[in-house]
């Protein structure tokens, strides 16, 4: 498992453990108590590191190449899943996967941004950056969900919508904007999870939800810390300061009233235990679907509207 820069203290301990193990086997010596000691020390260090992550470090966890991806989570969470393809207009975008799924008695439409875990996968998935046809596929599936009264589950994990010539030609702005408007109109509940990077309009394009959850080490921001740093701080290396200033962590997004809950990850980040992450998301999905069962379609729509209507901080003194 790739260690992140701030996990360096762990690297040394892990190396030492490996050496001791090798020694123990080669020399046929019992070093188990020494190994245990270092292991417990490593656990201690890991706990220390992970209970005090800076926003910038959290960004790195959120982008970890082995972080659980949408397609894998879907298969771990749901009983059945049939992937559906295409926007019926232009193409099928591998940067967004979606389909129909069941979970116990619940029937849902589920979709999310899809990143890869290696270069080849990432190129195929365009690093999780959708083109307009991705958003249009998502919309088609959501419209189907609304028609067949199936709740919508979305997983958000993208650096942003793809900034390319053809994406602009085919209306990236239009595709995202239309989704924002249409999602506001659906009468089925929409439950969204930011599972990694929630990057700007490209994230929001499938995120106009009744309920928004964030994984503990996920981030959600209007622009990447690097982008913010290079524009506002005039120095792209100041992304750590920008990450801090923009309030992009789960805790901050929750404080601002944008997220409704945080899903704890295993110590050391979600990439250490996909199943645990999946299980916790599954529990949340089930609980939320039960909650919304008692609401009518119009109530569901009104709740979503009220939620977004209240977003904003401004002053309005009496004249």
């Amino acid at each position, binding site marked *: 498992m790739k260690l992140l820069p701030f996990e360096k203290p762990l690297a040394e301990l892990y190396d030492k453990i490996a050496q001791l193990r090798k020694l123990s086997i080669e020399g046929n010596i019992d070093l188990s108590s020494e190994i245990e000691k270092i292991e417990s020390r490593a656990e201690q260090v890991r706990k220390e590191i992970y209970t005090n992550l800076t926003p910038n470090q959290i960004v790195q966890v959120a982008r970890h190449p082995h972080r659980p991806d949408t397609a894998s989570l879907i298969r771990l969470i749901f009983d059945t899943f049939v992937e559906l393809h295409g926007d019926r207009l232009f193409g099928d975008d591998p940067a967004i996967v979606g389909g129909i799924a069941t979970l116990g008695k619940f029937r849902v439409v589920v979709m999310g941004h899809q990143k890869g875990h290696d270069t080849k996968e990432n190129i195929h998935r365009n690093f999780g950056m959708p083109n307009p046809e991705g958003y249009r596929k998502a919309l088609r599936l959501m419209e189907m969900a609304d028609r067949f009264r199936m709740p919508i589950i979305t997983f958000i994990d993208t650096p942003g919508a793809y900034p390319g*010539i053809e*994406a602009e030609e085919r209306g990236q702005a239009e595709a*995202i*904007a239309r989704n924002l408007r249409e999602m*506001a109109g659906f009468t089925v509940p929409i439950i969204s999870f930011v599972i990694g990077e929630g990057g700007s309009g490209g994230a929001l394009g499938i995120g106009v939800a009744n309920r928004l959850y964030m994984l503990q080490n996920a981030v959600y*921001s209007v622009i990447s810390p690097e982008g913010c740093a290079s524009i506002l*701080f005039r120095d792209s290396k100041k992304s750590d300061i920008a990450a801090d200033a923009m309030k992009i962590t789960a805790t901050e997004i929750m404080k601002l009233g944008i997220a409704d809950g945080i899903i704890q990850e295993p110590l050391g980040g979600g990439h250490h235990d996909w199943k645990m992450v999946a299980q916790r998301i599954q529990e949340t999905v089930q609980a939320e679907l039960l909650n919304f069962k008692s609401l009518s379609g119009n109530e569901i729509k009104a709740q979503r509207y009220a939620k977004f209507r209240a977003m904003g901080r401004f002053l309005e*003194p009496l004249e």
Partner: protein
Amino acid sequence: MSIIDWFAKKEKSTGSSERLNIPGDVWVKCTSCSEILFQKDLESNQKVCPKCGFHFRISPEERIRYTFDTNTFIEKDTTLGPTDFLRFFDTESYADRIRKAQSKSGKNDAVVSGTASINGLPVNTAIMNFAFMGGSMGSVVGEKITRIIERSVEDFKPVVVFTSSGGARMQEGIMSLMQMAKTSAALERLTEQRVPYISVLCDPTTGGTSASFAILGDINIAEPGALISFAGPRVIEQTIRQKLPKGFQRSEFLLAHGMVDMVTDRRELKTTLSTILTTLSIPREPI
């Protein structure tokens, strides 16, 4: 986001005529054809270059004068103003930036909204102001746009919005992003109520503004030569590592790609708007 371009170009020449004034406010050089124009001539031509047709950026006041019937514009939500709720500090604090922009412009934020009429047809309207922090959309812009839309949901007056914005206001973090959803959600209600919404996209309309209410008009009208994009040209150039074709992301490009209904000269805009509004509006009384 494309606000990058705004920041990058801030010091360079822009479509804003103020920056081009020669002392005395008498002469101005056309950004496009370099013709030296008599300021008064330019103003009497709705700030369209009489020689090449270049459309200068204009202030909300000018827009109101050119578009609405005299003295019909009544501003609403005048006291709504921004707050530095994240205590955001980059090279300076957001609070200071707000103060500076306000004192320079005499306005609270980057949009002016209210009611007006166009050839006698009443509308709810909003006009974005690029001169105020690049027309960036924070909570105030989102709230004011949402309010005029919600008013139209009630009183059935068509909505006409003039956009000019570099995108989201980063100093308000995630809250600025959410304004995209908030304004678009309001438009969903408007659509359901069958009230027309005309979006007039002016230079520039990029980032989060383009990807929300700006592009969602029942009819989208672009001013000639306006930059209209989701991703800014610089970001795209950095991504694909090649120069962009001429005219890319300009109004005429969007017309060819099916994103806007028409590219309309500013001087014909009032007539066009009034014909469209007359045709689209369902004859009925407000509830």
